[in-house]
C-alpha cells in the first residue's frame, strides 16, 4: 500500500505514488538548477511539465488512476538528462562572463601547508609560486610577523571544499556545466595513476621558459635557505645545551637580587628562549624545503605544523612565567634589602634605613641615586 500525492502538471491534476513524486520532484529540481542561466527557464520547465503530463496520460486508464514509481522512472528516462542549450551567438557570449562577488578561501588542492597561498593565487588569478615568493619575502622582511598572518589566515579562512566555493573563490559563475566539467576532469585525474603529478602540474599552469628559469633559481634559493637555516638551528641547539651544562656543572652565582632564583627557573627560561627562536626558523626551513619539492604531496604537513605551533605557544607562556618569577623575586629582594644591584659591583640604595643595616650589607659599595648622580654612601 503506497501513499499517493496529487500534483498539478500543466493545469491538470495527476495522482502519483509518493516515491514517484519524489523522483519527479528531484528531476525537475535538477532541471531548474541546470537551467539557471537560461532566460527562458520558466517556460522550459512548463514545457517539461506538459510533456510529463502527456506521458502520464499514456499510462492512465479509467480503472488505473495512479502513476507508479516505475512509470515515472520510464518517463524520466525517456526525457533524458536536461542539457542547457549553449549559445553560439556572440551577443549571448558577451553576457556570459558575469562576475560573481569573490570570496577568499583556503584551497587545499595545490596547497603545501594550509592552502592559504593557493587560495590567494586563485583569488587574484596569479601563479601560486609568485604568491609563495611574496609571502616568504614578507616573512623575512617583517622578522616573522607575516608568519603569524599566515597562521591566522590558515585558521580563520574557511576551506573551499565544494565546487560552488571554488568557483566563488575565483569569482566565476557557478553553473551546472562547470560541475559536469569538473566532475569529468576529476574522474580523469583519479583514474590516472599519476594523479598527484597532474594536480601538481595544474598548480603551475603554463610556465614560460623564463618562468621555468625563475622557478629553478627559486628552488636553489629555497634549498640554500633550508640548509643555512638548518645549520643555524644546529648552532642554536649547541648553545642551548651548553648553557644547560653550564648551569648544572658550574653552579654560577648571580648578582645579589637574582641569587634567590633557582637554577631550574633559569634553565627553563633558556629552554623557552631556545624554542621560541628555533621553531619559527625550523618552520621557514621546512617550508623552503617543501617549496623545492612542491610536486610531492605530504599529508603530514598540517600535523607537524600544529605540533610546532602548540609547542611555540607553550614556550611563550613558559618564558612569560619565568620573566614574571624573576621580576617578582628581584622586586622582593629590593623591598627587603633596600638596594638594587646594578652590575655585581655597584649597588644603588633605594631605602636608606635598610642599606645602612650592617646585617644586610653584602656588597662593597653603596650609592644613593639623586638628580641623575650617584652619591657614595660610605
Amino acid at each position, binding site marked *: 500500500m503506497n501513499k499517493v500525492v496529487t500534483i498539478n502538471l*500543466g493545469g491538470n491534476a495527476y495522482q502519483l505514488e509518493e516515491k514517484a513524486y519524489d523522483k519527479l520532484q528531484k528531476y525537475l529540481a535538477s532541471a531548474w538548477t541546470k*537551467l539557471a542561466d*537560461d532566460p*527562458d527557464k520558466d*517556460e522550459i520547465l512548463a514545457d517539461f511539465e*506538459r*510533456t510529463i503530463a502527456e506521458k502520464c*496520460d499514456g499510462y492512465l486508464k479509467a480503472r488505473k488512476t495512479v502513476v507508479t514509481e516505475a512509470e515515472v522512472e520510464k518517463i524520466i528516462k525517456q526525457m533524458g538528462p536536461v542539457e542547457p542549450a549553449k*549559445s553560439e551567438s556572440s551577443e549571448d557570449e558577451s553576457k556570459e562572463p558575469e562576475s560573481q562577488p569573490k570570496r577568499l578561501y583556503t584551497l587545499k588542492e595545490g596547497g603545501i601547508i594550509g592552502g592559504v597561498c593557493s587560495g590567494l593565487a586563485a583569488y587574484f588569478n596569479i601563479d601560486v609560486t609568485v604568491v609563495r615568493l611574496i609571502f616568504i619575502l614578507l616573512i623575512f622582511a617583517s622578522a616573522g610577523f607575516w608568519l603569524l598572518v599566515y597562521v591566522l589566515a590558515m585558521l580563520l579562512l574557511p576551506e573551499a571544499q565544494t565546487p560552488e566555493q571554488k568557483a566563488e573563490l575565483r569569482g566565476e559563475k557557478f553553473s551546472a556545466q562547470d560541475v559536469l566539467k569538473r566532475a569529468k576532469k576529476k574522474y580523469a585525474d583519479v583514474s590516472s595513476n599519476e594523479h598527484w603529478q597532474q594536480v601538481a602540474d595544474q598548480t603551475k599552469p603554463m610556465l614560460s621558459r623564463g618562468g621555468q628559469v625563475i622557478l629553478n633559481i627559486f628552488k636553489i634559493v629555497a634549498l640554500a635557505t633550508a640548509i643555512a637555516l638548518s645549520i643555524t638551528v644546529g648552532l642554536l641547539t649547541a648553545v642551548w645545551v651548553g648553557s644547560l651544562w653550564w648551569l648544572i656543572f658550574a653552579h654560577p652565582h648571580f648578582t645579589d637580587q637574582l641569587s634567590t632564583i633557582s637554577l631550574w627557573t633559569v634553565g627553563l627560561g633558556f629552554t623557552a628562549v631556545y624554542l621560541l627562536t628555533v621553531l619559527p626558523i625550523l618552520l621557514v626551513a621546512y617550508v623552503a624545503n617543501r617549496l623545492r619539492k612542491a610536486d610531492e604531496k605530504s599529508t603530514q604537513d598540517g600535523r607537524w605544523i600544529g605540533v610546532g605551533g602548540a609547542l611555540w605557544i607553550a614556550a611563550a607562556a613558559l618564558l612569560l612565567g619565568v620573566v614574571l618569577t624573576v621580576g617578582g623575586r628581584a622586586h622582593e629582594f629590593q623591598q627587603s634589602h633596600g638596594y638594587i644591584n646594578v652590575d655585581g659591583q655597584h649597588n644603588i640604595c633605594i631605602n636608606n634605613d635598610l642599606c645602612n643595616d650592617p646585617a644586610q650589607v653584602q656588597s662593597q659599595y653603596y650609592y644613593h641615586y639623586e638628580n641623575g648622580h650617584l652619591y657614595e654612601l660610605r
Partner: protein
Amino acid sequence: MTIANKFLPLRKGLLEFLVLKIVSVDKVYVAEILARLNKTDFATGEGTLYPLLSRLRRENLLEYEWVESESGPPRKYYQLTENGKKQLQELESYWQKLGATVKSLGGPNE
C-alpha cells in the same frame, strides 16, 4: 571508446541543424521531432530538446503556436521563421562543403 563516442561532440553540434531541418518540412510538435530523431543516431529526449528549441526561438530562427489537442494539454507546434529558413540554407551549404572536404581529403583526386 566506441566509434559513436568519438563523434559525440559532432553529433551534439549537429542537433541544431537537424532540428531546423525537421521543422522546415512541416509544422511539428516536440513528440514528432523526437520520433524522427529517435530512429537515427541522434536520439535524444525532451530534456535536451526543449532548452534547444527555446534557444532557437530566442535567436529568432523558429516560432511556435499553441494547438489544442484532443487528448491532454495543448501542444506547441514549431515552424521556421524567415531568418530560420535563411540560416538553414547556410547550414546546408556549409554541411555540403564539409562533406566534400571529408570525401576529398586523403582521396586520389586531391
